């Protein structure tokens, strides 16, 4: 007898702790008997004892379940049924129930997912009496409520109690309870000062399609881009996949697959979804609906999701909208520690791949053939060089990370390769390359200690030079982006200072790795050919390759800052070369102090000269651009206007220092077939030039998950459709097909 007694006492205690309000007998019932034991109790609650006609008040049913038993949300999920509430109040209009944010239940490892409530839930509805009503009115509720543990038991509730309709409003003792539950009811995003957007993997969803989607949530007003004003948001549930509960509307089933934090959401986050549409045709576009639980500054908020879901008929042509942010990322934005390793790994891989990009290749070639000269000096020397080179790469990556952090702290957002937007930087790199080339030509040596130069003889390269070459490799690497680097850098830019440093160091280590391995693995070092007279000639040849890079830099500067700046830089480089030549001559006299003094003077004069270069002022648009340009200057408003006119639109983002962009433009955008297609289909073209820093362009890039250029967008003529995002490496065929898809001619329409 003692055990049932104990259970009874516990139940009493549980009941007391829950403190359900006492209500008239007619407003309380228990139902869903499980072998005689009711699993569900229902109470009809009113937030007012008395109301005026025309004033809104709330009626509700408080459902109290036994431990482990649950009832369902308005979408029960893959099994169950939602509570079915039928209110009857004479002379009153009853609104739809307000559903608090539910829990997610997963059976069989997620094979059956349902949404509902354990313990208790208050389902409230707004009510307004018509003006003619007065006196006591009976509020009635008939409800079907399915309650499940493992087994399910359908319950039925028939509850009623009176409310006084009169001249004054009087809140009831239950008012507070209504308010407590209201706090859990999702509100429209606008009310919460949040921005919510949906991205889809295709321009419209056809019957039977499986697709990917993403919900992007942030707290910044559109277009403000003022990063510090955006609060950091996180999914509020312990498991990310429980933070969004979808409704089953328009025959579309949705499931959360992951979450990520793209930099362009400025503290917001993105939930990736997988969706499948039923095989049946839908009448027009449907909505993506559901509820989202978000944490902002330690407070949990619930927001309604109600976004357009474009639909199309079976067999209709739809455009694939590739967007890297649609892919589920299994790391948790609540626990970046897990994700960091993936990002670091990507960064490392990307760094290795960077070695093969045209930007870095010359430096790497110099290094490897430098080894040939070293080969006779034994392993210790070679290893020392490998480590020095690696240190140089890492130091410069760390410096780059520092600059990114500092700029971010100052409120400036930057992208990968941002330094090439600064003319003074381009000039400095050109200067460094010229000096470096002169050293390869043998005009001077990277040593101030002339006596040691004499004795060292063939040992022309020192560890210091390896370090310097490491710096150079990094500086030259940035205008090239390699696979993986973009993702890793995008991740880094949105993360903490430590993460940025870690990612940049990982890219650096990847960049240094091939050369380091050649130095460290004896078998590999042996593969490098023995040095001979040919190495001096090869050094000279590579010197000319570096001068070629200088030509490219001059061209960038000419395009971005004008011919005058270009001429100024050329003059400076000439003076610098002369200075270096004088230094070399003094060096060859083998007198230490004059050489040292000459070296210091040269460096000081060189830096002063660089600082006073008249290249900062951007040239007025047009003067430096004699070539016919494709497209008008990008502005988001102009693009909107063009689309509002019903015109198909092509937008491309480029920069003079972006080699990939230039190749695409030359090979594809200048192609006659492409030009003809663009013209015949009436495309309006916009060019976003990111050669110099431009906040509007950075934001537009970020909107598509990019930290840099290129980006190609093709908008069809139908309003509201998502653009086709073209791959970074364009081909004429891919481009023309995208144009045809976006803007079919009448005879092509299906």
């Amino acid at each position, binding site marked *: 007898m003692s055990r049932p007694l104990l259970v009874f006492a516990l139940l009493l205690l549980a009941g007391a702790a829950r403190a359900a309000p006492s209500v008239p007998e007619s407003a309380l019932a228990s139902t869903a008997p499980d072998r005689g034991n009711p699993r569900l109790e229902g109470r009809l609650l009113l937030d007012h004892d008395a109301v005026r006609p025309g004033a809104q008040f709330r009626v509700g049913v408080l459902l109290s379940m036994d431990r482990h038993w649950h009832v369902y949300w308005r979408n*029960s999920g*893959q*099994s*169950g*049924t939602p509570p*079915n509430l039928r209110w009857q109040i004479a002379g009153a209009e009853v609104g739809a129930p307000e559903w608090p944010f539910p829990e997610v239940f997963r*059976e*069989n*490892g*997620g*094979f*059956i997912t*349902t949404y509902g409530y354990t313990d208790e839930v208050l389902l409230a509805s707004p009510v307004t009496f018509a003006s003619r009503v007065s006196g006591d009115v009976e509020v009635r509720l008939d409800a*079907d409520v399915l309650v*499940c543990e*493992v*087994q*399910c*038991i*359908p319950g039925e509730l028939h509850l009623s109690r009176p409310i006084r309709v009169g001249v004054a409003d009087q809140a009831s003792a239950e008012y507070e309870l209504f308010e407590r539950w209201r706090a859990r009811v999702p509100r429209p995003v606008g009310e919460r000062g949040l921005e919510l957007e949906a991205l889809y993997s295709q321009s419209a969803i056809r019957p*039977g399609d*499986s697709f990917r989607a993403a919900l992007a949530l942030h707290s910044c007003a559109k277009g403000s881009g003022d990063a510090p004003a955006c609060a950091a948001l996180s999914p509020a549930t312990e*498991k*990310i*996949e429980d933070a969004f509960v979808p409704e*089953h509307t328009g*025959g579309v089933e949705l*499931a959360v*697959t*992951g979450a990520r934090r793209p930099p362009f959401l400025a503290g917001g986050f993105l939930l990736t979804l*997988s969706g*499948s549409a*039923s*095989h*049946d045709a839908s009448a027009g576009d449907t909505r993506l609906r559901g509820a989202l639980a978000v944490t902002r500054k330690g407070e949990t908020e619930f927001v309604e999701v109600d976004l357009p879901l474009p639909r199309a008929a079976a067999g209709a042509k739809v455009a694939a909208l590739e967007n890297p942010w649609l892919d*589920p990322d*299994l*790391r*948790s934005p609540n*626990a970046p520690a*897990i994700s960091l390793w993936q990002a670091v790994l990507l960064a490392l891989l990307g760094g290795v791949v960077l070695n093969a990009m045209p930007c870095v290749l010359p430096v790497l070639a110099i290094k490897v053939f430098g080894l040939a000269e070293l080969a006779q000096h034994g392993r210790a020397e070679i290893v020392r060089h490998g480590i020095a080179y690696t240190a140089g790469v890492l130091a410069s990556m760390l410096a780059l990370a520092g600059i990114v952090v500092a700029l971010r702290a100052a409120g400036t957002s930057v992208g990968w390769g941002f330094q090439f937007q600064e003319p003074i930087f381009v000039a400095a790199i050109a200067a460094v390359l010229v000096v470096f080339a002169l050293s390869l030509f043998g005009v001077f040596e990277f040593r101030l200690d002339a006596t040691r130069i004499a004795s060292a003889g063939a040992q022309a390269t020192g560890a210091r030079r390896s370090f310097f070459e490491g710096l150079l490799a990094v500086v030259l690497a940035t205008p090239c982006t390699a696979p993986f680097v973009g993702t890793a850098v995008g991740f880094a830019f949105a993360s903490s200072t430590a993460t940025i440093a870690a990612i940049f160091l990982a890219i650096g280590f990847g960049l240094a790795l091939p050369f380091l391995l050649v130095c460290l693995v004896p078998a590999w070092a042996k593969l490098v050919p023995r040095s001979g007279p040919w190495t001096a000639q090869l050094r000279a040849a590579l010197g000319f390759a570096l001068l070629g890079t200088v030509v490219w830099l001059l061209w960038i500067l000419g395009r971005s800052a004008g011919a005058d700046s270009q001429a100024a830089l050329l003059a400076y480089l000439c003076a610098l070369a002369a200075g270096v030549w004088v230094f070399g001559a003094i060096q060859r006299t083998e007198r230490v102090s004059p050489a040292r003094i000459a070296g210091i003077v040269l460096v000081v004069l060189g830096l002063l000269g660089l600082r006073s270069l008249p290249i900062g002022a951007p040239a007025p648009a047009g003067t430096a651009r004699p070539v016919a340009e494709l497209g008008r200057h990008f502005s988001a408003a102009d693009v909107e206007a063009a689309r509002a006119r019903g015109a198909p639109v092509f937008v491309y983002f480029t920069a003079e220092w972006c080699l990939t962009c230039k190749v695409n433009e030359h090979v594809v955008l200048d192609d006659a077939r492409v030009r003809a297609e663009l013209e015949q289909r009436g495309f309006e073209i916009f060019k976003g030039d990111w050669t110099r820093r431009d906040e509007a362009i950075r934001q537009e890039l970020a909107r598509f998950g990019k930290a840099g250029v290129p980006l190609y967008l093709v908008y069809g003529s139908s309003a509201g459709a998502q653009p086709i995002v073209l791959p970074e490496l364009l081909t004429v065929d891919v481009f023309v097909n995208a144009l045809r898809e976006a803007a079919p001619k009448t005879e092509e329409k299906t």
Partner: protein
Amino acid sequence: MKRIALAIAAAALLGAVQSPKIGDRVPDWSARDENGVEHKMSQYAGHAVVLEWTNPECPFVERHYQAGTMKQLATVLGAKDVVWLAVNSTYTNTADDTKAWKQEQGFSYATLQDEDGKLGHLFGARTTPHMFVIDAKGVLRYRGAIDDDQYGRAEKPKNYVDSAVQALLASASPDPSETQSYGCSVKYKD
């Protein structure tokens, strides 16, 4: 957390690959009924097949058996050469349980014994009842609820399975071909 997410992603992926969608050919399966007789998809080529996920312990199933929904429809469609098979994927169910239930309810169609849940996972059955209609060529043509009356309150519920099979017999496409099924979750073995 990561493992759960991975499992979900994997399940979503596998689910997408494995469960036939509307218009997909149903892979050949075989299962034994309560009398140990083997049934195969291939043996029913040329017949429309209705699969009904069932569990006598589920109140939704009980309600439909009390109302005679399944039994009557199986009889009507049986006269038109349509095969009706029940499937019980409840992990605690035994052949003897099924025989007792069959006797109590007086229906004649076989109930496939799927206590390991293989057939249920193959079709993506999630509720009892959950209905699947396969055409004479072995293509899945309907999946979802038995009718539009999840609360059992409609006077004349629309029976989706009936309308789907009638459409097939008239060489038309079922509309709707997919609905959200309601009921108890299938009690699969973990």
